[in-house]
């Protein structure tokens, strides 16, 4: 079968990213927008992991310090660890601002954000 995970995964993660961005562009509820953003971030993380060569490699935990071939590339893993935490931080900050905004105005709708208009 030609349909291996390695060929499907990049396309899938790209689809997830764009689906999330579509959500950001079309949703009007702020919480929905942040959910969409988090989905796009999950897609980005999957995109990074899709390029480690995971089909033929092993988990990068070395049993023997002299044998260093046949493992997957650990650098994308490291980058995703960082990007997951940063994504979470952005979501938390955004939701905090949203919650405070809701306390002040009673709305979560972005189209009603009209305070700053010229």
């Amino acid at each position, binding site marked *: 079968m030609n349909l291996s995970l390695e060929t499907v995964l990049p396309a899938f993660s790209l689809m997830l*990213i764009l689906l999330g*961005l579509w959500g*950001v562009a079309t949703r009007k509820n*702020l919480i929905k*927008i942040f959910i969409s*953003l988090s989905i*796009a*971030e999950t897609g*980005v993380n999957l*995109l*990074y992991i899709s*390029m480690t060569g995971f089909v033929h490699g092993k988990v990068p935990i070395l049993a023997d310090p002299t044998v260093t071939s046949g493992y997957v590339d650990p*650098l*994308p893993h490291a*980058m995703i660890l*960082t*990007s997951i935490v*940063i994504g979470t*931080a*952005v979501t938390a*900050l*955004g939701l905090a*601002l*949203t919650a*405070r*905004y809701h306390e*002040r*105005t009673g709305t979560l709708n972005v189209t009603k*954000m009209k*305070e*700053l208009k*010229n």
Partner: protein
Amino acid sequence: MHPVLFIAVPLLAAFLAGPLSQIARKGWLPSIILVIAAIAAGSMLPSVLVQPINETVVIAAPLGINLYAGPAAILLILVTSIFGILLTGSKELRDHFEKSTPSTVLALLHFAGIFGIFLSGDLFNIFVFLEIAALSAYAMTAFSDTTASLEGAIKYLLAGSIASIFLLIGIAVIYLHTGTLNLAELSSTMPMVPAAAKAVIISAILLALAIETELFPLNLWVPDVYEGSGSALSGLFSAMTIKATLYLLFRVITLFGVDQSIIDLLIGAGLLTMIVGELGALRQTNAVRMLAYSSVAQAGLIVAGFFAGAHSAAIVAMIAHSAVKAGLFLIIALAGLSGSVASLTGIGLKNKFVGVTATVLILSLLGLPPFIGFAGKLLILQGLNSSVGIGAVILVLVASLVEAWYLLKLVSLIWKTESTVEFSFKPIHTVILILPLILVIAGGVYPKAILSLTDKVANDLVDIQSYRTNVLGGSATIESTDLNGGTQ
């Protein structure tokens, strides 16, 4: 001097701000850190002009993260921290810092992020610092806790998050095709990347950086952020944050060696941004919002100028813009007014020094002689004329006319007799305005001195070959073996 300290010291200060809240509470901690950074950058500058410093973190350059302290990075750190001090020392921001430790932490981390953007030579590391700077900027926008500021912060956050997703896509494609994240190595491997992938890389990264540098049409959120965050913070963003993202745009695009069509696109986007910015500023009644539009326009002019080949002029314009905007936003903050343009009436008669400073800064912003803005604008026009043609020059001049319309109106308001609003300046608070005033006048009277400096700085940005040898060549490879041997 180790460049990494520019990042580590503000971080350390931020971590300590909680336990040391007694000291931090006074509200001077961010200013102190900026003074230290300015002194360090100032003392490093002469030696860096001769030999840039490349610092290895743990493992040598192509494998690990390197920090590259070249003339451009150090000069911009110096300039941004000096004019940052004006704003962090202002009453408006110090009130925030005094009220709560978190705001001190946010400001310190913002500086760490900005210095990281200037220094880092690794693409993913730059992303991390960009996120630190951006996240702290979102949160700082919400300092004043009004509906407007929260709205500005949310818009800023959404724009920034989309930018970071595109940046991450760009970095992923880069790593997939080149196998490296190091900017110096990328400068030699980028030409070998397949055309389709290169197009995606450039568009994703340009899209992200265009949002961060506020280029048209991705800058619709900018005036909202500025208006929502208030005058002192707007000054901080204008004087520091945009300068870091502009530097990043210049550095990355020059190193990647893009096609002429992309360069043309960037010049076009810059000019369009300038026109839109000036037209937007024309119809504003809020002074902060007006200056925000003017900042957008200036960023557009700087981008167009740099990519039209006027590299040195773009640096001069960046320095001039930092000085002018720091000064003007500080004046609005000092006046403590509602921010409407009309309320600035008669400010010059109340306090002559403030009035003269404001006038000089505005005239420099317009690009009139004998101020520093003149040198910047003239050289940018020369660059545009030689690489794009007379059409671009006319466009800039038309935009300057529009700019003159609203800025001169502002000047006449400042010196108008009938003052409607009660306000007073404490002389002690206005003393610091001498800094931008001196720079703007001295730079205008002796442009040679500044230009000889910025020529070297621009050369550092454009000379890819020497960047590559400084980061990768010669001595840089020794550290990795040294490190292991030293610990045995």
